[in-house]
Structure formats: C-alpha cells, structure tokens
C-alpha cells in the first residue's frame, strides 16, 4: 500500500489570517437576490432624503435669516397722497442721516400694485383704497429692539404716520417652524440609522443561525472569532456597499427632482434652500457611514454570539 501523502513544511500551521475570496465562500452569498442589500438601499435612500431635507431647511433658514436680520420695513400710513409723499421724503431723509442705516429703498408703487393685485385687482384706485407707502431699510447690524426704538423716535418727528417693524418679527413663527422641521429631519436620520443597524443586526443573527454548522466547523478547525467575524463582516459589508450605492442613487434622484420642483415655485425664500457642494459631500458620506455601521454591527453581533461557544 502506498504511503499517505505527506504535508510539506510550507503548510506549517500558524495563526495567519483567513481572509479573501476563500474565506468569503464559507457563507453563501445571496447578494442582490437576498433581502439585505435592498433593506439597506431603502434605509439609505430614506436617510439621504431626510438629511437632504434637513440641510435644505437649514440653508433656507440661514439664507432668510441673513437676508432679514438687518431688514426693517417702514410703512407711511397716511390717507392723503400729498401728505404721504411728503412724509416719505422726510422719513427717507431722517433715516439716511442715521449711522446705523446702510441703505434705503422705497418700494415702487408698481411693485406694491403687483403685490396687492390678487386682492384689489388691476389698476386699483389709490384714492379710494389708500395703500401705505413702504420703505425697505437695511441696517448695518441686526435689528435689535433698542435700535428699533431709537429709529421710531427719529421717525416720530419727521413722519408721524410712519410705523417701523423689523422684518424678522413677522417671520419669527416661520423660522420656528423651520427649526422644528430641521430637528425632525435630524431625528428621522438618527432613527433611520438605528433602524438600519437593527436590520443589519437581525440579518447577521439570521445569517449566523443559518450558517451555525459551518461556523462550528470552522471554530473547531481552529478558526478564531475574528476570522469568523471577518467572514460575516465582509459579506454584510459587500451587501451594504451594494445597498448603499443603490440607496444613494435613489435618494439623490428624489432630492434632485424635489429640488427642481421647489426651484420652479420661484419663491425667494425656497430658493435659499439649495444644497451646496459641502451638503452633497455630507450626503455622499451617508452610504459610507451605513457600510461602516453595518460592518461594525455584524462584527459585534457575531463576536458576542461566538463568545458563548468554547
């Protein structure tokens, strides 16, 4: 009888890593045929939309706030057209002398007519329905209450029919609502992140259960916990990369379409909610973060499960 085959020195045993394609084969790979990449794709797409929404709201609020922070509107509410014109000129002159005022612009009558057209109709009679004259004032600083009171004092002498309001006070509730939506978007992104991690945890547990026999065999052949965890980490990392790419494409597509529709509204405030390159970079990091969370979750799940074995 011939001798059994001898094992060469080159096959000496050690604690070298077991990785790569050969290690990956130990766990059957369903890839896109399995549910995991699609679950991750949906989670990433939703997270991308939520984060993009939050960033757009943030940009919109910042842009609007910067625009109106130093904005003040002066209304001359004088029924007599002659008196109103006189007070407008006096108010402009008084304000122009104040060092805190950066610029003054009287809102043209045509612009006011256009604003009021939906309510008063075309060619409204200025005598029949007196419309206040509006002066848009830009301050060199934010419109604080003491500055406003001082300007009111200046106007009280020059134009008694003048009423001065900070633009920010009108839009306060809008900012408050935007702020709430921002937090909602952030909370949604966090919740989706946790849900994704939970989905990966369940998937890792399920894969671990399905491949329990294989894991036990590799374990008894001398496979270390890290080696076995790496097999699952790699498998789920691959699924998460596929799902992340699909999810990013879907999410970015939805954001782009929504963005185009909002731009088409032509609203000045909404236009400030566009996404900058830094925002897109942040959005592009979402699937990467998703892959890292998925791999870390898989690793911790598998390691904690293996620790229960001898």
């Amino acid at each position, binding site marked *: *009888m011939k001798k059994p085959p001898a094992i060469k020195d080159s*096959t000496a045993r050690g604690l070298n890593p077991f990785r790569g394609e050969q290690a990956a084969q130990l766990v059957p790979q369903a890839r896109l045929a399995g549910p995991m990449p699609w679950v991750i794709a949906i989670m990433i797409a939703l997270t991308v939309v939520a984060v993009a929404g939050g960033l757009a709201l943030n940009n919109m609020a910042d842009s609007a706030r910067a625009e109106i922070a130093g904005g003040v509107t002066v209304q001359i509410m004088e029924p007599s057209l002659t008196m109103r014109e006189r007070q407008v000129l006096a108010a402009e002159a008084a304000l122009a002398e104040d060092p805190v005022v950066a610029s003054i612009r009287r809102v043209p009558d045509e612009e006011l007519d256009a604003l009021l057209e939906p309510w008063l109709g075309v060619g409204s009679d200025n005598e029949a329905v007196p419309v206040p004259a509006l002066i848009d004032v830009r301050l060199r600083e934010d419109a604080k209450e003491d500055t406003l009171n001082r300007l009111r004092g200046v106007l009280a002498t020059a134009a008694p029919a003048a009423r001065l309001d900070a633009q920010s006070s009108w839009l306060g509730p809008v900012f408050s609502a935007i702020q709430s939506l921002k937090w909602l978007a952030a909370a949604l992104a966090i919740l989706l992140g946790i849900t994704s991690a939970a989905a990966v945890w369940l998937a890792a547990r399920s894969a671990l259960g399905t491949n329990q026999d294989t894991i036990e065999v590799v374990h008894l052949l001398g496979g270390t916990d890290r080696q076995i965890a790496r097999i699952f980490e790699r498998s789920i990392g691959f699924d998460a990369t596929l799902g992340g790419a699909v999810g990013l494409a879907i999410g970015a597509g939805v954001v782009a379409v929504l963005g185009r529709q909002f731009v088409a509204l032509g609203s000045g405030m909404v236009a400030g909610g566009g996404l900058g390159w830094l925002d897109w970079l942040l959005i592009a990091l979402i699937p990467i973060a998703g892959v890292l969370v998925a791999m870390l979750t898989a690793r911790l799940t598998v390691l904690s499960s293996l620790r229960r074995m001898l």
Partner: protein
Amino acid sequence: MNDAQGEGVTFDNVGLRYGTDREVLRDVSFTLFPGSFYFLTGASGAGKTSLLKLLYLAQRPSRGAIRMFGTDIITMPRKRLPAFRRRLGVVFQDFRLVPHLSAFDNVALPLRVSGVREDDLRKPVSDMLDWVGLSDRMDAHPATLSGGEQQRVAIARAVIGRPDMLVADEPTGNVDPEMALKLLRLFESLNRLGTTVVVATHDVHLLKKVPESLIMRLDKGKLSDPTGALRYPPRASGGGS
C-alpha cells in the same frame, strides 16, 4: 516531536454533565501518550462522543483537570484555544462537511484557516483526495456524494494538516470493509509519523486490525482500562516505530 507534544494528553478525575442532568462522564482519568494508537469502545450512549468532544476542545468538563500538550486546558484563556485546535484533526460522526463547498474546498479548509497559501495547498489537497479515492470527485459538493464518500472527505480534512492528535468518531461506519481497512492504514501511517490517534468505534473487529493499539472502554460514563495500558503505558509504543 516538540516538548509540548511530548507531554500528550492527561485527564484527571474529569466529570461532564449537560445542564442539570446526571453526569455522562464520571471520574475519567487517563493519559494519552504521544504517538500511541487508541481505540475508544463502549456501547451506544456510554459517553464516547462526549469524551471525544472534550478531546477536540468542543466542550469544557464540569469538573476535573485536562492537560493537553503540556498546557492546562481548563484554565487556558479562550483566545488561545484556536492554536490548540489547529494541532488536532477531527473526524465527526456526522462528518460536518460544509454543504456549499466542494470536496476539495472542504479538505482545504483546515489549511486555509491556518493561513496556508493557495499555491501551497493545491497539491497536498489533491494528493489527499487521490489517496482516499476521490480524485474524480474533487469538485463535487457533499450533497452529491454518497455517505462513504462524505466520510472519506471528512477523514481527508482531518488528516490534511498532519495533526499532533487525530480524534475520529466512528470513522469507518459508512464505508465498505476494504475502504475501512484502507482508512485504518492511513491512521496507522499518521500514527507512525508521530500523531496520537484516538478512534471511537463499536466495531470490535476493527480493534484486531491494529495489534499495537491500546483500548479504552467506556461503560455508562466510567472508563475501564482492560489492557492496563492507560495506567501503565508502554512508553516505547508508537512515535515512529
């Protein structure tokens, strides 16, 4: 043979129970000397598989002490166990082949786990499969192999790494007498190269095929020593004789 291997395996008053059931192994004490060939016999349910599980480090005993290759296994940190498991070859009673891997990949698994390069493992794995008569079934998956073929793949996987100790649970249960004898010769060849061999079997005819073997008999979890060799082992036996 290194010093660690030279110390063999020692069980001292080992007991094993699963959960709160009665002990399946009681006061088991013996020494397996390196390079020796042992048959573990006993009726079904006597505790053979449980004793083998302790030997291939799948289970810790409920009590007693186990030393393996000069190291106390009981107090050894868990993270050091894989290095010891790589020195063992195991033939499981139910083969435990990885179902979605080919015969070749199943046999190559211990070498890959040990980090052997692909170029270095192709020939030994092919040679081993050739030796167990499966050179034409290298790419076959376990589901397409017969029981005997699966058993031969399991044996090839157990011996491919030339282990310091081979533990086999009923390794000839599914093969014909001719193949059983051939496999036994493979175990003997390994044994002559210095591997300690422990074969659990209920086939008394098999015991006669290896005259120099020592017999451990389990009866209801208690170990008897019919030849006295477990207590007074022949120091010169095995080890490349």
